[in-house]
């Protein structure tokens, strides 16, 4: 299987006045062309930090201390400013969490769309404008709205505009950092359906970041689960969702109800995420794990392949 993007042993640190917190610890994962990779986990587990690292958006005090991010044979972390500028949006585009904040309130959406195209392509303004109208049509917004300001659109429409901007240069990979969190389920469904139609049409890959595991089980090809900066389980979406191996994944999945099947008592995961400044010896999850035993407190588990094909980092399996 050829790989579009390959992340090897990536570590991202936040240098704070109280010490260095490792927000992403030794994560290795890859994305194939046309694949959807989902990254799940609770708030603060390093999902967004990972997404930011891929397009190298981190600023101080965040620091990508180790590892490599290889896109088409080239290490993103070694690119100079010009290469990086070309790489961003041409090859990888990002859809951020809240559309309201990624659109400039005093510039029309049409202007913002054409801006992106003109910044990267040497084409006349008129052509860029036509392309923008086309893009808006693709995400289901009429071309007449080109002259609208962001506040004149609803939240769902704004999110669509942001997706249209992400598609503008036909990138190979779109990073979606909780793109539908601020939207209601109906709009969320509409947008995801559109997105998948577009994906079939253009054939890009998606790195989908969300805390919504059920949504992820439906749309992703593979799912990675993160906890306290570590990738603890990675595998086929059906396998991770239907046959989780790591106690944390099991906990996540038993935290929300199934629509079909018997009514069962829901179990959350007790406790709070571990403080990244005081990481215990051994497994990060030991304090909240119901099946913790002596070895968990001594050695850190590593990712290993288990029977159903998942990669799991736990001493139990």
């Amino acid at each position, binding site marked *: 299987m050829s790989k579009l993007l390959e992340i090897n042993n990536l570590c991202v640190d936040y240098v704070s*006045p109280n010490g260095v917190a490792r927000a992403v610890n030794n994560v290795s994962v890859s994305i194939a062309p046309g694949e959807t990779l989902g990254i799940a986990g609770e708030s603060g587990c390093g999902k967004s930090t990972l997404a930011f690292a891929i397009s190298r958006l981190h600023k101080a*005090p965040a*620091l990508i*201390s*180790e590892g490599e991010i290889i896109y088409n044979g080239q*290490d993103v972390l*070694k690119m100079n400013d010009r290469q990086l500028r070309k790489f961003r949006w041409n090859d990888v585009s990002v859809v951020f969490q809240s559309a309201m904040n990624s659109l400039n309130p005093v510039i029309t959406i049409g202007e913002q769309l054409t801006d992106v195209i003109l910044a990267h392509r040497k084409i006349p303004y008129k052509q860029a404008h036509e392309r923008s109208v086309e893009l808006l049509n693709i995400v289901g917004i009429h071309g007449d709205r080109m002259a609208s300001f962001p506040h004149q659109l609803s939240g769902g429409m704004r999110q669509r505009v942001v997706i249209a901007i992400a598609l503008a240069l036909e990138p190979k990979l779109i990073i979606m950092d909780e793109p539908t969190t601020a939207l209601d389920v109906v709009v969320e469904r509409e947008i995801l359906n559109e997105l998948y139609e577009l994906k079939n049409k253009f054939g890009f890959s998606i790195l989908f970041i969300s805390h919504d595991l059920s949504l992820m089980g439906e749309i992703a090809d593979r799912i990675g689960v993160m906890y306290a900066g570590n990738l603890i389980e990675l595998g086929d979406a059906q396998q991770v969702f239907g046959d989780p191996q790591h106690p944390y994944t099991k906990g996540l999945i038993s935290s929300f109800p199934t629509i079909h099947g018997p009514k069962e008592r829901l179990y959350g995961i007790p406790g709070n995420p571990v403080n990244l400044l005081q990481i215990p010896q051994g497994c990060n999850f030991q304090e909240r794990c119901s099946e913790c035993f002596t070895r968990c407190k001594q050695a850190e588990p590593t990712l290993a392949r288990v029977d159903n094909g998942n990669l799991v980092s736990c001493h139990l399996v």
Partner: protein
Amino acid sequence: MDKLINTTSSSAHALTKRESKFSWQQIKKTLGKAYAFFYGNPPAIIGGLLLSIVLAGAIFAPVLATHNPEKRVARPHQPPSAEHYLGTTRSGRDVYSQVLYGARKSLSVAISAGVIAMSLAVIVGVSSGYFGGKIDDRLNFLTNVFLVFPQLPLLIVLAAFLGQVGSLVITILLGVTSWPWGARVIRAQTMAIRSKEFIISAEVMGESKIRIILVEILPNLVSIVFGGFLGTVIYAMGSEAGLGILGLGDATEVSWGSMLYWAQTSSSLYTGAWWEMLVPAMALAITGGALALINMSIDQVSNPKLRTGPHIKLWHQLKKEADKRRGLR
């Protein structure tokens, strides 16, 4: 009843605990903050050092001064010597003692004028920015009226009209005429902040307007207010000296302005007594420079989002190491 006693005793316990925490840890925290302010921040170090020298000179003037600044203590225009460190004036007064006592007057005028001006600016700026509507219209009109008055000529005319005026009058005049610029900036910033969601949510939570202004809005303005305050202090110090040179202040008081006035009237530079002119001028320049340097570095502390402090140095070091590992640079 039992419960009541229990709760009071426990709250008293909590209180003592907090107090004991307050004394030691608070001091440690404050010291840490002061350290973070000066660390890797040369303007702050230099400015703070210069200003503390000037302030110490002003505060300990009675101890440090060698002579009575208002008495004739030697023959006129003696050059600097062991007896008179910075020489004497035309009228035989000790320049070193005068510059120390003059710092008291000049600094107190400048700082009080800064406090008056910035208080007015905050009151006018925040209320017109936050309340809007008619209040804004009227206060903005007032601000604009004060803004179009040319300040220094106005000061000169007022001072001349009132005759030779004491430092108190000059302080009030400077304070009352130099607030509009600050008020405008604060008004604009308040308008930007008041439409933010945390203000709206504070309104929804039923917080009083006073609390919203004092607790929600003002902390966001600290760097602007403090920057404006230091700017006004520099300006007031210059204006006080300017009025003094023109002879519009009280020439019998010892201040840097009146020292310059006497140095000029005795044409000290022509007669070769450079020390009489240069010493107060240097004192003004050093104090102004120190305040400007502090003003430059103040934003780094009052704005928590700005990236400064010891940990950023660590970040740069780690970044360098990571870049080296990747073969960059």
